[in-house]
């Protein structure tokens, strides 16, 4: 009995030896899920600001189209006219439809009717090119669009 009492008198120190392991595990988790940027942009993309915006979550049903002038270092290659970037490449207006069809077929079938196109156009582009894109979207029956802009609560 006496020996039993002796044992319980001192609470043994909790071993913190595995703490680094736990923390490293968390660290690696965050390091792997952190994505700094989705895509490398070849075009200028200063979004316009708007106040009446709605959030665009559910990334699996969003197709993104970037429109803008080529970045300064690519000006010699592409000229100064606004370009369309989809995914990781620059496409011409006539190739846009092929890309969009490809993109639609990649999505799960049950989501295909709910796809939203996020139009990320630079402030400085003319509406003409955006109108042309919208006509293409109409042809493909992608009617839900989102003029992506920076939220400006004023």
């Amino acid at each position: 009995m006496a020996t039993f009492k002796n044992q319980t008198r001192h609470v043994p120190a909790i071993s913190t030896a595995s703490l680094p392991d736990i923390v490293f595990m968390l660290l690696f988790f965050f390091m792997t899920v952190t994505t700094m940027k989705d895509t490398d942009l070849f075009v200028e993309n200063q979004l316009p600001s708007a106040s009446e915006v709605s959030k665009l979550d559910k990334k699996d049903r969003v197709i993104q189209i970037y429109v803008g002038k080529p970045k300064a270092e690519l000006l010699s290659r592409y000229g100064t006219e606004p370009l369309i970037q989809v995914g990781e490449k620059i496409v011409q207006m006539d190739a846009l439809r092929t890309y969009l069809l490809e993109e639609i077929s990649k999505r799960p079938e049950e989501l295909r009717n709910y796809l939203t196109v996020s139009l990320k156009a630079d402030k400085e582009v003319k509406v003409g090119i955006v109108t042309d894109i919208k006509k293409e979207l109409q042809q493909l029956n992608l009617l839900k669009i989102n003029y992506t802009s920076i939220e400006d609560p004023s």
Partner: protein
Amino acid sequence: MPRRKGAPEVNAGSMADIAFLLLIFFLVTTTIETDAGLDRMLPPIEPPDTDVVIRQKNIFTVNINKNGQLLVEDGLMDLKELRKAATAFLENNADGSCAYCKGKKDPASSDNPTKAIISLKNDRETKYSTYITVQNELVGAYNDLRNREAQRLYKQDFTVMEQDYLNPETPSSVRDDLKDKVKRIQDMFPQKLSEAETSTN
């Protein structure tokens, strides 16, 4: 002095601190980015089967030229006044069938909110930022009216209700409740914003 056998043990006590430091750094810099923007529906490409006759007084035409100037109902207008003008047009209520409207009942303007259409036309050379600003003001006019009615009926802003409704994290019981309310407000001021073909001259 006897030779030491093997390297001395490295003290790993501060490892946790280092790891925590890194962890906190990544926690802070991680931003799960969500985009936001103006939602619009494009008109379907096939024309409707029946020709709908719309009276001119039910259409609120907004024209943007390539210099970013606004022509609203045949008059030059400043961007700041657009929202007010659009709001006045939407709830004008000329035929008196809209009980919740506070408009002037001007017989030369729209009959009621369900018939009122805003038609936005633009030049191909218009700057995109101007175009978005104008769209923003027009959507803002709808949101102002919807917010007003939502405040009156449910003591809550429509934009907040809609956001909660669309948010997948809201419990489904709340969502079902919101669905009817959102639908009701949307029906009170249906968003009829037509983007006509752009002029090419």
